[in-house]
């Protein structure tokens, strides 16, 4: 039995709560990703997580993300491509109650249809 490791990555108004339990990771995004260059913060963290040994599945919970600028989108796409390269399955969950999330993340969902193992869908906060 493994013990879950919890860690929070913070930059400006954005927090990413990471729970790592063996082959399973949950990333809960909270606040706003509105930095001028969000990739400077996000890309190294997400790249490192995608390389965890024995990682099989990631849940990315975006339901508590209040706002995201368009500069954040490439970081999400790069993350998806890294996960695909490492054969890691991923669920990206967004809030159906948020107008901007429904549109932005549906656009991402349309792209994710061609990536094996990656799903983007509306739902409730990961437990």
């Amino acid at each position, binding site marked *: 039995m493994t013990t879950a490791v919890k860690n929070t990555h913070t930059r*400006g108004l954005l927090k990413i709560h990471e729970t790592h339990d063996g082959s399973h990771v949950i990333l809960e995004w909270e606040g706003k990703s*509105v930095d001028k260059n969000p990739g400077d913060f996000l890309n190294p963290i997400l790249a490192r997580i995608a390389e965890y040994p024995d990682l099989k599945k990631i849940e990315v919970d975006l339901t508590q993300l209040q*706002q995201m600028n*368009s500069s954040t*989108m*490439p970081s999400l796409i790069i993350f998806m*491509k890294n996960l695909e390269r490492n054969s890691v399955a991923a669920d990206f969950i967004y809030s159906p109650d948020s*107008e*901007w999330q429904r*549109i932005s993340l549906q656009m991402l969902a349309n792209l994710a249809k061609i990536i094996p193992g990656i799903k983007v869908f509306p739902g409730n906060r990961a437990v």
Partner: protein
Amino acid sequence: MRAGESRGVFTLRNLDIVAEMEPVYEYVHDLIESLTHVYENHEHYEGAQLALYELFENAVKYSASNPPEKIRFSFRVNHLQSCIMIRNKCVSIENISALTRAIDEINMSPEGDTLYQARMRELFENPYQDRVRLGLLRIVVEAGFRLRYLKSKKFIEVIAIKKNQLRGGE
């Protein structure tokens, strides 16, 4: 009213702010967060926040910095419409041309979300591009604004307008 009570149910119908500031992203960020803190419960503010971030980000990225030229900004909301205007001096004529071409393309397209999806596919093919070029599309598709512009030499004024839907009792 004590300061701590200012975030309750919001009843003010009209917002009218005019300001100018140095083209520094941190200043813009602080301004929008101050507005959000006060107006987040305003019935027409939600979509405006997205438009504010995207328009200001463009203005700061492409503003002349040597010497620095202030960004002029107005934000007006009433029960009929929300209107954001941002005027700045660009680094080059090429920046203005790229911006006006992008707005023209969006305005001439019958389906903004088709352009949005096409741009997402381009980003998917190559996410390491210098310019993301999603901001204007998000303002139109996600926040429901229409975009206009006025240009004069190296100055560009971008105007985002949205008709506000009347809600119960109005």
